[in-house]
Each structure stands twice: as structure tokens, then as C-alpha cells.
């Protein structure tokens, strides 16, 4: 984007501003304030970290607009993981265009620790503006002017949440883009360390940290470098950069880069793009030195901050003195006495989680039903107006059905992100993590993984999207990989059908209903599997480095409607755009699989269908109650027994209905999906499944509950069958194998339910994991491990059960 672009003017018109800061400094709030409505969401290369860019518009400045990049929250630029490397690479512009300016967001109440990052940026000669955020939460505001004098860069007091100081900040940014402010301060590093660093700075690998732009091989004039550091340590070097075709780097910047390398490079780091010889040089230097390099570097920075920043900060340097606490912090103290109480704290937590669960499970239901009936109505009207045929089928079953499959998730997604926004913005989420950490740590999960796991009981789609609340890639990934194991509501119809059809409605010990017991057992078992999977995957696939958990308990704040709406709509939009398209495409493919090839007697089929359709229409007028599916077999048998008797309209239509359903079952069997079901039969037979179940498993990919209606189709009951359908239950019980044994025994039922409990029979889950991780690798892994787990478990239970003598 920057170099090698022929129009350099265009580059100058739209500089890049990087927003950096510690976690919990209101960085994202400021990002939203600065950039207004829309952010372009992408991904950093190689990691599953979201990259958001928005546009900042200036009034009468040299630049009319700037791109603002929201960097992940970080305490330091020192890096060890690929994920941490994002921060340093983004501010240096190693693999992307370098920012013309960094805006550091700091919490005015936590100045010393927040400015540690500022010090690193200044050492690296990154042009800087500091936004002193949360000025409303400190009683004695920090001395912004004194800080600006000390660091040599502007400090602008703001309250991002209320929008205070935005105009001043925008003006300062505009001015800083015209004349980049580069700080001058340097921490008092020990002389011996400096000598070593000086030597390391000569290494060619240090310059290479700045990326290709600075390699001697490629030497374009870099517009942004021309605008960068003037008059710091080496006026000469920078001045020569203005004329020389190769961008030069000042000696001080090289020293800072060498210091970064020394502090970051390790025997087992995950950093990429580091020259092997630089890696060796750093390791040798550390090994040769008998001093504690890390402590020297970090200690020197804090010595500087303690000495110079602490006196200008709002709070005294040491906390043992009387700390003046602002109103909001005092209120927070009082609320926390309840919220973090051993008894009341957990009670409040349980209550809030119950509300979240209730919202997803019940409150979303009317909206979901409405969406389903709306799409049902749309499909029916399309069928009524369009001529019957393959195109109409594609439109109704494929496209409309697919769109319905996407939109139906929206109520839960919107509600969950409303709940998440409330929990997060109010500051309660950090408390929940604080309370639950001990328990979640034992499972290898982050404290914040609780809400996604709980949401997984309703639906994995919003739950996977909710993993956003965790900062570390490893925590997010692990949670995403285990959430689909929780019993979501789409599994319930299958459990209901199987339990009702195959398990006796008797009571154990006279008072424990067997059917209820099986249902509860399925829930508990899925939880056990989820926790076990977290334990195993967390130690193997997504092991990750042991990192100290760092939590901050921010003061309680009132969430703003603006940020709540923005989060809800933004996430829903991303889901529609990115996961939605995949779900739609999969629905159409599945539809095609189950519809093609059509039966050879296609014309006859259509004739039968149209005759049946017209007779249904007649029947609907004739019959007072709309055609009751439950009575169909009975009526059919009755009419078959009385061939000579005059047939009334209702009976005729029932017969037609029956014929139509039989036709549809045959069509389904004839389709690719049907053939695939038969093809996989040898593989699923050891689990107790026949090819008809095989078709059901394929159909269930659209959504698990579709299994029930697919089985309805397979057994010729029609497509209106649901889990309460009595004829479907009856059919299941009567179904026989070739040897006369019943297909569906309680053992088959158990095997089938276990398969559904564990298998990733949900393309929407895979689509949303793809959207969150931005690669097909993790959805592929998720599908593979869950299917393998399901297969093995079902195999073990079915074969074990048979060995033990259960039918």
C-alpha cells in the first residue's frame, strides 16, 4: 500500500494511525469515538487476531482523513508469542505499512504502568500522541502539561466514554501527522548494558526487524519515513534520508531495536521473521553476560517512571500513603463487597448467568419461531405462485431454506451480545472471571470462558462468537473447540424423539421416570465430555505457553447504549456476511445432494405431486381439521380394506398424501444423499445404524434438528414430522433389519444419541469457527476430532452393549 505505489500523493492523503494501549484503558471505546460508524475487520497474517481499521476525518487539516488501526491491548512491546509480536510489528510496520503516528491510550489512574509501553514506543522513535483517558475517575488529575514536557510528546486529557476531549485529540492528531512528535527521553540503562547493546545494534538482523522497506536490496523512497523522526539523536542520519533513496535509521532507533531483540528473543520463543544469526547473537550475548539483562532493562524503565512520572501522576507512588479515591472507585469498593463476597458473590453470579441462559433459551424463542414461520410462509407463497419444478425447489428449499438457516441465529446472537456488552462494559465480566478463575483454571480454561460455555447450552453459534471476550488466542481457540460439545437446544428434538420412541415410560424405583433420567444423563455426560476435552486439548493441541493470568478489576461503569448497539449490530453483521454465506452455500449443496438425481419417472412424479397437491387443496376445504398426519396410516389401512366402498374426499386426499410421501421417500433414497447413506452403511453399521439413519445424519448437517424431519421423509411420513410425531415414533419401533431384528432398540437409541451428542453435525458451527479463526484449519480439526470421538464412543457403547447381552 505504501511503497511501490505510483501515486505518492494518495499515501500522504491517508496516513495510518495506530491505537495502542494496555488492556482495559478504553482503547476500543476511543476507537469507536474516533472512527464513528464503520470498521473494516480483517485478520493479522498467521494468527487468529482480529484487525480492525476505521476512518478518522479531520476538519481543515493537511490530511482530510486517516486510517485508524486498533491494536490488541498489550502491557509491553516485548514479545515471545506470534500473537504478542503483532504489537511491535504493527508499530514498526514490519510487514505492513508503518503507521505515521501511534496514539497511546492510558488510564489516568494507572499512569505509571501504562506509560511503560509509552516509554518503549518513544525509545523506538515512534511518533506519539498520548490520550489521557478516564479523567473523570481521578480526583487529582495528572499534570498533562508536565508529562508532555517530560516525554516531549503531546498528552491530551479525554473521557472516551463520554466523548470529552475528542475535538482536542483529533486536532492534536492532525497536527502530529503534519509534524510528527518524537519523544526524547531515555531510561537510565547501566553503562555495561548499553555497551553490549551498542554492539548488537550493528547486527544486520536488527535493521531487518523494520521489515523489507529497509533492506538494502529494496530501497524505495518511503513517504512515511521522510516524515518521521527529525532531530533526535542523529539529525544527520535523518537528513540524509531525505535525499538518499534508501531510508536510513537513526542510531538510537537501532539501539532500541537491539534492546527489544535482547529482551524478546529466547531459546523457545515463537517469533517469526527473526534472522537466525541475530537470534544466535542475542542468545550468546545473554549467555556470556553474568548480569541479569531482563531485570536491568525493565528495572531501568521503572526507575525512570518512578522518579519522573509518579510525581506528576494522580495517585501517590506508594499506596501505603492515604490514597485519594474518586467517587466511582468508592462506589466500586462498596459494590465489590457484595459482588466478590464468598456467598453473595456466587449467588449474584449464578443469578446473572441464569438470566443470560434464560435469555438465550427462552426469550429468543418467540423471535426464532417468528423467523421460522416467516420463512415457511415465504416458501409456501413462492411455491403457490411459481410453477412447480426444479427451479422453484432450488429457490424454496435451497435459497430460502438457507437464508432461513442463517437468519434464525440472529435473535440469540443479538441477545448474547447485548448480555456480553452489559457484563463487559459494566465491569462485571472481570469480576466473574475473578470469582471463577480457580474453578476454570483447574479445567485449563480462562475464567471468561464461562459465559461462552454456558451459552453453548443454548447454541454453539453465538457461544463461539462470544469467545471474543478473551484476549489470548490460545484461550479463545480452546474454548471454541470445546463449546460445540455442550448440549445445544438443537439436540433436544433428537433426544426427545429417541427417548420417547425407545425408552419405556416407566418409573425406576417407583418414582424416577426412566425417560427423564436418560435426558438428564445426556446433559451431564455432555458436560463431562466438554470438560475432559478441554483438559486434553489444552494439554496437547492448543497447549500454549504458560502465561501469568493478569486481571484488572475496573471500576463499575454504566454501559452506554451506543456501544451496546454497536457491538450487537457489528457482530450480527459480521455473522451474516461471513458465516451466513457459508451456511447458505452449504444448505444449497445439501439440498442438491438430497434432491438429485431425480427419479427417472420424473414426469410421473410431477404428475403425482400435482394431483396430490390439488387433492390436498380440496381436502383442506372438505376436512374440518387440517390434515392430521397422525391419522394417515390408519385411514389408509381403512380404505385399503374397503376397496369397493365409495371414497369420500378426505380419504382420497389421505391416500394421495400417503402416495406422495411414499414417492418422496423413494426420491430421497434415489438421490446422491440416499446413495451416500447406503454407501456409508458398512461404516456406521457397527454403531447400530442402517442406511436410513445414514441419510438422516447427512441431512442433520444443515442443523441437528433436521434429523427428525429427514427421518420423517425417509419413512414416508412427510416432511412435517417433528419430535412429537406419533407415526414417526411408531415407524421407528416397527423398523426391522434384514434378519427380522428391530433396528431401533434402546441400545441403538443410546448409540445414536451419543453420536449426536459428540459429533459436529452442524455446518453453522463450522462456518462460524471458520469466520472467527479465519482459516479452514480449525473447523477441519474440530470436525475431525468430534466425529472421531462420536464414532468411537458410539462404537464402544453399541458393541459393548451387545457383548453384555443388551439387544
Amino acid at each position, binding site marked *: 500500500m505504501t511503497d511501490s505505489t505510483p501515486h505518492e500523493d494518495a499515501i500522504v492523503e491517508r496516513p495510518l494511525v495506530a491505537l495502542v494501549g494496555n488492556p482495559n484503558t478504553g482503547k476500543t471505546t476511543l476507537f469507536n469515538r474516533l472512527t464513528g460508524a464503520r470498521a473494516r475487520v480483517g485478520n493479522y497474517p498467521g494468527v487468529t487476531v482480529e484487525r480492525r481499521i476505521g476512518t478518522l476525518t479531520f476538519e481543515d487539516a493537511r490530511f482530510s482523513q486517516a486510517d485508524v488501526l486498533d491494536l490488541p491491548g498489550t*502491557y*509491553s512491546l*516485548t514479545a*515471545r508469542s506470534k500473537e504478542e509480536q503483532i504489537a511491535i510489528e504493527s508499530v514498526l510496520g514490519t510487514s505492513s505499512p508503518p503507521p505515521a503516528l501511534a496514539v497511546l491510550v492510558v488510564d489516568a*489512574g*494507572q*499512569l*505509571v*504502568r*501504562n506509560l*511503560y509501553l509509552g516509554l518503549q514506543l518513544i525509545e523506538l522513535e515512534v511518533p506519539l500522541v498520548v490520550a489521557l483517558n478516564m479523567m473523570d475517575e481521578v480526583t487529582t488529575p495528572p499534570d498533562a502539561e508536565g508529562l508532555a514536557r517530560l516525554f516531549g510528546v503531546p498528552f491530551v486529557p479525554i473521557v472516551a466514554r463520554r466523548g470529552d476531549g475528542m475535538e482536542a485529540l483529533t486536532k492534536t492528531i492532525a497536527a502530529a501527522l503534519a509534524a510528527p512528535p518524537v519523544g526524547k527521553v531515555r531510561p537510565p540503562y547501566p553503562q555495561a548494558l548499553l555497551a553490549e547493546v551498542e554492539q548488537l545494534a550493528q547486527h544486520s538482523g536488527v535493521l531487518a526487524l523494520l521489515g523489507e522497506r529497509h533492506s538494502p536490496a529494496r530501497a524505495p523512497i518511503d513517504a512515511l519515513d521522510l516524515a518521521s523522526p527529525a532531530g533526535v539523536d542523529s539529525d544527520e542520519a535523518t537528513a540524509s534520508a531525505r535525499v538518499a533513496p534508501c531510508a536510513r535509521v537513526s542510531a538510537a532507533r537501532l539501539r532500541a531495536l537491539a534492546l527489544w531483540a535482547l*529482551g524478546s528473543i*529466547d531459546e523457545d520463543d515463537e517469533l517469526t521473521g527473526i534472522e537466525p544469526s541475530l537470534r544466535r547473537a542475542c542468545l550468546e550475548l545473554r549467555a556470556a553476560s553474568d548480569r541479569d539483562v*531482563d*531485570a536491568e532493562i*525493565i*528495572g531501568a524503565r*521503572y526507575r525512570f*517512571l*518512578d522518579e519522573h512520572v*509518579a510525581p506528576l*501522576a*494522580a*495517585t*501517590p*507512588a*506508594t*499506596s*501505603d500513603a492515604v*490514597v485519594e479515591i474518586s467517587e466511582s472507585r468508592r462506589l466500586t469498593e462498596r459494590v465489590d463487597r457484595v459482588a*466478590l*463476597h*464468598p456467598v453473595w*458473590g*456466587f449467588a449474584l453470579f449464578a443469578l446473572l448467568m441464569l438470566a443470560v441462559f434464560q435469555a438465550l433459551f427462552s426469550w429468543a424463542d418467540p423471535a426464532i419461531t417468528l423467523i421460522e414461520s416467516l420463512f415457511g410462509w415465504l416458501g409456501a407463497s413462492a411455491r403457490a405462485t411459481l410453477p412447480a419444478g426444479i427451479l422453484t425447489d432450488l429457490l424454496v428449499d435451497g435459497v430460502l431454506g438457507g437464508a432461513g438457516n442463517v437468519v434464525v441465529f440472529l435473535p440469540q446472537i443479538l441477545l448474547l451480545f447485548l448480555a456480553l456488552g452489559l457484563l463487559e462494559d459494566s465491569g462485571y465480566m472481570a469480576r466473574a472471571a*475473578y*470469582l471463577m*478463575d*480457580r*474453578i476454570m*483454571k483447574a479445567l485449563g480454561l480462562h475464567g471468561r470462558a464461562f459465559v461462552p460455555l454456558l451459552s453453548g447450552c443454548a447454541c454453539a453459534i453465538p457461544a463461539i462468537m462470544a469467545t471474543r471476550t478473551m484476549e489470548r488466542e490460545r484461550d479463545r481457540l480452546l474454548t471454541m473447540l470445546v463449546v460445540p460439545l455442550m448440549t445445544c437446544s438443537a439436540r433436544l428434538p433428537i433426544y426427545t424423539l429417541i427417548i420417547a420412541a425407545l425408552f419405556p415410560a416407566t418409573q425406576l424405583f417407583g418414582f424416577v421416570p426412566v425417560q427423564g433420567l436418560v435426558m438428564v444423563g445426556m446433559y451431564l455426560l455432555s458436560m463431562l465430555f466438554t470438560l475432559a476435552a478441554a483438559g486434553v486439548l489444552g494439554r496437547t493441541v492448543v497447549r500454549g*505457553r*504458560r*502465561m*501469568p*493470568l*493478569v*486481571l*484488572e*478489576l475496573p471500576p463499575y461503569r454504566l454501559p452506554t447504549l451506543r456501544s451496546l448497539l454497536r457491538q450487537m449490530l457489528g457482530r450480527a453483521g459480521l455473522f451474516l456476511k461471513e458465516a451466513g454465506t457459508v451456511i447458505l452455500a452449504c444448505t444449497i449443496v445439501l439440498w442438491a445432494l438430497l434432491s438429485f438425481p431425480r427419479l427417472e419417472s420424473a414426469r410421473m412424479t410431477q404428475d403425482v405431486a400435482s394431483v396430490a397437491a390439488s387433492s390436498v387443496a380440496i381436502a383442506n376445504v372438505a376436512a374440518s381439521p387440517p390434515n392430521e398426519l397422525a391419522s394417515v396410516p390408519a385411514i389408509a389401512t381403512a380404505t385399503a380394506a374397503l376397496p369397493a366402498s365409495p371414497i369420500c374426499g378426505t380419504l382420497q386426499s389421505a391416500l394421495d398424501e400417503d402416495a406422495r410421501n411414499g414417492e418422496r421417500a423413494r426420491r430421497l433414497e434415489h438421490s446422491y444423499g440416499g446413495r451416500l447413506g447406503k454407501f456409508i452403511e458398512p461404516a456406521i453399521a457397527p454403531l447400530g445404524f442402517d442406511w436410513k439413519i445414514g441419510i438422516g445424519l447427512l441431512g442433520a448437517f444443515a442443523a441437528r434438528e433436521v434429523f427428525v424431519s429427514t427421518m420423517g421423509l425417509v419413512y414416508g411420513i412427510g416432511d412435517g414430522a417433528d419430535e412429537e410425531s406419533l407415526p414417526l415414533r411408531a415407524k421407528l419401533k416397527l423398523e426391522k433389519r434384514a434378519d427380522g431384528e428391530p433396528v431401533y432398540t434402546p441400545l441403538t437409541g443410546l448409540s445414536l444419541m451419543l453420536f449426536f451428542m459428540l459429533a459436529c453435525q452442524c455446518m453453522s458451527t463450522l462456518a462460524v469457527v471458520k469466520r472467527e479463526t479465519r482459516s479452514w484449519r480449525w473447523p477441519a480439526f474440530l470436525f475431525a476430532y468430534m466425529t472421531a470421538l462420536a464414532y468411537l464412543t458410539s462404537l464402544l457403547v453399541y458393541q459393548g452393549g451387545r457383548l453384555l447381552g443388551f439387544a
Partner: protein
Amino acid sequence: MTLADVALKQPMTVVAVGGERGLRRRLMELGLVPGTTVTVERVAPLGDPLELRARGCTLSIRSSDARAIAVAPC
């Protein structure tokens, strides 16, 4: 004596930070360098994590990590 076993609200001085390099560097970068005054403000109901206050800033870390920080009364 480590930070994991000090009494609440008792001002302590960090004497040394130990542990594996990544953990140690991270703890120090959060401000827990030798010589820093730190107090344990609160312990979560289940005994973990600990809420610390140093340099007017607060943060919570796990007691297993706090065990890497040697302290002495100041």
C-alpha cells in the same frame, strides 16, 4: 517469604522475582521489579487470584505466579 503468603494490606517490598523467563519478565513488566512496594489488597473467595496494588495501579495475578515473587516487610 513470597507474595503468595503475606497478610492482606501489609506493605511489602519485592526482593527478587524468580520463575521461568517469560513469566518473570511479564511480572516485572507489570511493575513488580525488585524494590517495588506492593500490597495484597484482596483474595478471591476461592483463594485465587490475588488482587495487588503497586505504584497506585491494581492488578490480579494467580497465587501460583505470586509464589515466584520474593518479598520482605518494608
